[in-house]
């Protein structure tokens, strides 16, 4: 099996090449087959790896990527349990979303359809590179690749200026994080002389693993920079504002990139470097606080959003905050667990919203929906499952992962746990608000849309059903010990990468926590039910308006960073560019021009003039020779 590993990323890349180069003459059916088939093949290989347990921390070497004095960075893959799990998520969920896309994007022109699938395959390739790379540099290649694909796909409908602006925003925000990551990689090279995970982290000879000093400057610096990279990619405070705007892209893209896979790259990276982060409790504290703050902030914003995709986007930011909260408290397994379950139910919710948007002819405002339950039974039912899963109602997947996170947080920090609990309640509330407003009541859109409403074709509903099933059963790989002896299968599975930490919690406490989390979620759902059972148009006032405007964070960033930078740019343009560099360059030209005009009379064509000049200059030359030079 090992010798097939290189095919996992290579196949989507081939798909990208075929679809990208053949976009003008391949038929849509062929493009769909290539696009989905390559990802499916990767998924099958990943699955075979999983079944055969062909996982090892030893990197699989292919060739030297960089080889200079004192630093050797091989192009190598490392497929261990952690990356194996991510491979399954990426290729599995990725495949479903590809299938969904074939139907969702069907109305696009042929060349654009192929372009879409080419980008999507390139994204899968980059993401696989990111998780399979055996060192930070290969990860960085994938890291940049997914950023690029995210940019390309957000701006897929490039004729809409707002969409391209959103794409640009996502790219720039990501770049800020990427810079942190890059600096961290340089620092790691400077500090340890290698970037290979195996050489850094393995328990016997790892250069980081054998360190014992905690909170040394270098470790804290490296981890903080890595975390900065993660905040960019995974949309955490302060770099989260790009993700809601990224909803400009096609809905399957939001599902694949901005919910299931790319945004979890930061979590993967931190879980991957858990050895490093364990040495920096300071950074861990910051991560936990940032994660909790993001979770709460995004959840509050999500309550008052009216765009179906924006709600889901803020929900994603909030859930990512949850994962970082888990990472910050050292619960790496819980974070990865939540990545997985979140990939299932958030992809499900996004695809469901795509199905809704598809049905109501591109409308995204939930205030103009309603009453879709009867018309879209499959979408409604799967969406409902997604909502229950994300709200954390047992025994759906979201419950188990959320419970694992909250338990860990409770043990570490009571205050952050309270924030987590509030966020859980808010999550349940806004998701069911979305559900009720969208599917209950009567339809509030135009007559034309009402007539047009139809359930999506099978290519769209099948992925929904599969994801719904996964959302239901996905949690059973991490059942708490409390309910089932040896239930925490995931912890054992990831043990080679993430050392097991035993929590000592009274069973009674654990029961209480579970009851509490479930309780608040149920209460929140009931609240949402009574409030939004019947849709009433609401005029936001006071605090609600602040929430609807996303705490004015975009405006704040705009006035703190964007405007001054713009002013700086304008000033630089005026003073350096125009009167400095331009003046210099133009000045040279003008000087030559002017000089040429002045010299022109010398070239009169009159032989006499030439000779006169010659004589005069010779005369002067002689004078100089004889009298002055001495």
């Amino acid at each position, binding site marked *: 099996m090992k010798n097939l590993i290189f095919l996992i990323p290579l196949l989507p890349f081939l798909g990208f090449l075929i679809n990208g180069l053949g976009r003008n003459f391949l038929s849509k059916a062929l493009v769909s087959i290539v696009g989905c088939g390559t990802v499916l093949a990767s998924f099958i290989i990943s699955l075979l790896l999983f079944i055969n347990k062909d996982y090892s921390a030893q990197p699989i070497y292919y060739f030297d990527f960089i080889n200079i004095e004192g630093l050797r960075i091989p192009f190598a893959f490392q497929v261990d349990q952690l990356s194996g799990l991510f491979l399954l998520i990426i290729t599995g969920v990725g495949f479903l979303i590809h299938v969904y896309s074939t139907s969702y994007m069907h109305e696009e022109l042929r060349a654009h359809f192929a372009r879409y699938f080419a980008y999507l395959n390139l994204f899968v390739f980059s993401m696989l590179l990111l998780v399979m790379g055996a060192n930070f540099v290969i990860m960085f290649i994938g890291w940049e690749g997914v950023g690029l694909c995210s940019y390309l796909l957000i701006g897929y409908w490039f004729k809409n200026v707002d969409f391209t602006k959103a794409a640009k925003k996502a790219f720039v925000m990501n770049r800020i994080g990427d810079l942190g990551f890059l600096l961290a990689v340089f620092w790691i090279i400077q500090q340890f002389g290698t970037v290979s995970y195996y050489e850094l982290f393995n328990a016997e000879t790892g250069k980081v693993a054998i360190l014992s000093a905690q909170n040394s400057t270098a470790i804290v610096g490296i981890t903080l920079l890595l975390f900065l990279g993660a905040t960019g990619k995974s949309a955490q405070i302060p770099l989260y504002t790009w993700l809601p705007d990224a909803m400009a892209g096609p809905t399957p893209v939001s599902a694949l990139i901005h919910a299931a896979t790319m945004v979890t790259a930061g979590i993967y990276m931190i879980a991957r470097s858990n050895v490093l982060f364990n040495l920096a409790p300071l950074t861990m504290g910051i991560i936990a606080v940032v994660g909790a703050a993001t979770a709460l902030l995004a959840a509050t914003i999500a309550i008052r959003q009216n765009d179906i995709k924006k709600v889901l986007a803020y929900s994603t930011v909030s859930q990512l905050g949850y994962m970082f909260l888990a990472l910050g408290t050292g619960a790496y397994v819980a974070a990865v667990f939540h990545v997985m379950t979140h990939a299932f139910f958030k992809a499900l919710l996004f695809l469901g919203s795509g199905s809704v948007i598809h049905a109501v002819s591109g409308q995204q405002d939930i205030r103009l929906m309603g009453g879709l339950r009867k018309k879209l039974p499959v979408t409604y039912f799967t969406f409902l499952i997604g909502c229950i899963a994300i709200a954390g109602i047992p025994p759906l997947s979201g419950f188990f992962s959320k419970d694992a996170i909250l338990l860990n947080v409770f043990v570490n920090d009571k205050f952050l746990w309270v924030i987590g609990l509030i966020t859980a309640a808010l999550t349940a509330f806004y998701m069911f608000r979305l559900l009720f407003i969208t599917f209950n009541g009567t339809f509030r859109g135009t007559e034309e849309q009402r007539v047009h409403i139809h359930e999506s074709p099978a290519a769209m509903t099948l992925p929904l059903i599969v994801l719904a099933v996964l959302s239901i059963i996905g949690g059973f790989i991490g059942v708490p010990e409390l309910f089932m002896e040896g239930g925490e299968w995931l912890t054992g599975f990831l043990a080679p990468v993430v050392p097991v930490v035993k929590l000592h919690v009274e069973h009674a406490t654990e029961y209480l926590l579970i009851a509490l989390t479930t309780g608040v979620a149920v209460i929140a759902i009931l609240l949402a039910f009574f409030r939004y059972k019947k849709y009433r148009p609401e005029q936001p006032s006071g605090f609600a308006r602040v929430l609807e405007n996303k705490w004015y964070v975009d405006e704040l960033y705009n006035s703190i960073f964007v405007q001054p930078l713009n002013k700086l740019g304008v000033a630089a343009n005026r003073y350096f560019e125009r009167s400095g560099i331009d003046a210099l360059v133009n000045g040279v030209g003008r000087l030559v021009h002017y000089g040429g005009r002045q010299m022109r009379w010398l070239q*009169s*064509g009159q032989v006499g003039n030439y000779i006169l000049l010659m004589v005069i200059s010779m005369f002067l030359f002689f004078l100089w020779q004889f009298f002055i030079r001495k």
Partner: protein
Amino acid sequence: MALFVIGIVGVLTRRNAIIIFMCIELMLNAVNLLLVAFSKMNNLANAANNPSAGSDGQLFVFFIMVVAAAEVAVGLSIIVMLYRNTHSVDVNFLNRLKH
């Protein structure tokens, strides 16, 4: 030197190609004359015991005169061509070359 200056002034002031040409010859010969004279002057000290000292200049001058003869032939033929083309020997017509 006087001859040379006459040559220069002639070249500068006249527009008749033949006169200019003659003035150039004048300058050339002025230089020849100077060459012979300076050559002798330079070797005055040796002149007493070696009457032929300092006659290198004269040798050079012979060469120059041979070359000058060829040059005159070329120059005159240019002037002839000039006359054939412009029906004049005025050098200022030559500035039409630039158009």
